[in-house]
């Protein structure tokens, strides 16, 4: 089981929840796949149709930016905390 922290702009997709729990682990991709089963609209805000993280969305696994540890293949241990954060972008 993994805890997913949902950023403010996306909480409207999950009834206002700031954290979700999903029965998945292994990799960021596996966690996001599980997320997509229950909350597909939330999931497609985070990844495109090829399954890649959107350019200006960051995912941290226990505080580590997953782009530095394998991207969607980055390992996620059972009990980990996965935090989704929009990056600083836009004007």
């Amino acid at each position, binding site marked *: 089981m993994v805890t997913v922290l949902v950023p403010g702009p996306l909480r409207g997709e999950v009834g206002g929840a700031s954290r979700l729990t999903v029965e998945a682990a292994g990799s960021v991709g596996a966690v996001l796949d599980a997320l997509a089963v229950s909350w597909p609209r939330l999931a497609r805000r985070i990844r495109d149709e090829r399954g890649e993280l959107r350019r*200006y969305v960051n995912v941290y696994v226990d505080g580590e930016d997953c782009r530095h540890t394998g991207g969607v293949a980055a390992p996620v241990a059972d009990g980990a905390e996965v935090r989704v954060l929009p990056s600083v972008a836009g004007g």
Partner: protein
Amino acid sequence: MTTLLAIGTAKGLFLATSDGGRSGWEVSGPHFPMTGVYAVAVDARPGAPRLLAGMTSSHFGPSVATSDDLGASWDEPEQAPVAFPADTGATLGRVWQLVPAGPDEPGVVWAGTEPSALFRSTDGGRSFTLVRSLWDHPHREQWGAGFGGQAVHTVLPHPRDPQRIVVAMSTGGVYRSEDAGASWLPGNTGIRAYFLPDEWPEFGQCVHKVARDAGNPERLYAQNHHGVYRSDDDGRTWTSIAAGLPSDFGFPMVAHPSRPGTVWTFPLIADAQRFPVDHRCRVFRSADAGGKWEPLSVGLPEQPFYPSVLRDAMCAGEGGGVYFGTRSGEVYASRDDGDSWSPVAAHLPDVLCVRAAEI
């Protein structure tokens, strides 16, 4: 009747409404704040009017939403309404165009996208399917990207013949289908591509916008990346109608919704000088299919004017309605085919598109 003017901007959708004579406007929004709304449509076919908006968040990607209560609420499907199938290896950049088909095809809505592709919906814009025949076109690998990206930005179903549809893309040019989208041929004969070694290629032109003459649907008008053209054979061949315009550069091209031969555009100085000609805010109109052009500026700003009008930021509606928005966030309306203008809204984000309907 109420006039609804949907205004897509770089930071959301605004909805302007006006009763009666369009003398005053109420503006709501932004809907979808902090998204670029590049495409908006008002599906006014029989049944309740439906608004469609194609928005792109720089963080969370593109999507399409619909409203059946004139924007009071919006519905966005759980599954992505427009998405490339996995085998294409492509990802949706944004939806550039949403166009309801003709009255003979209820529920059919076309979407033009970046990267250049055409999608078709049969459920009123809730879900779309890639039109494989255009995606698989052998020319596709040679289609280029303009500064705004590579996109199908124009979709023109024929109002009376569902077999015929015209699309236009930058860069790539005009493509035509006569079999409901099963196959496509380029339709660029006569359109110059000054930026290519071969200035008269079969395809590769940078068409900025194409409009279909509602009263004579075989007739099309095109504003190109330098060059203004008319086709009298449904896009097979084109002839210049730039004479009489102060410049052949610009982005919008709008045809009157019912009167044959009347079109509007907003000329800019040149590719390298993307300001209104003479730094004056002027719309140009032809009432004879491009034979003669006249400037229209009554009611528009008289001081030096620098913003441009983007390809979808001008439209025409019923009852003499003509509308345009600028990159400086000003929106103007005419109720006499452009003879005079009055402001609808000001100080909005950059206006990307406008569409009007009487509801």
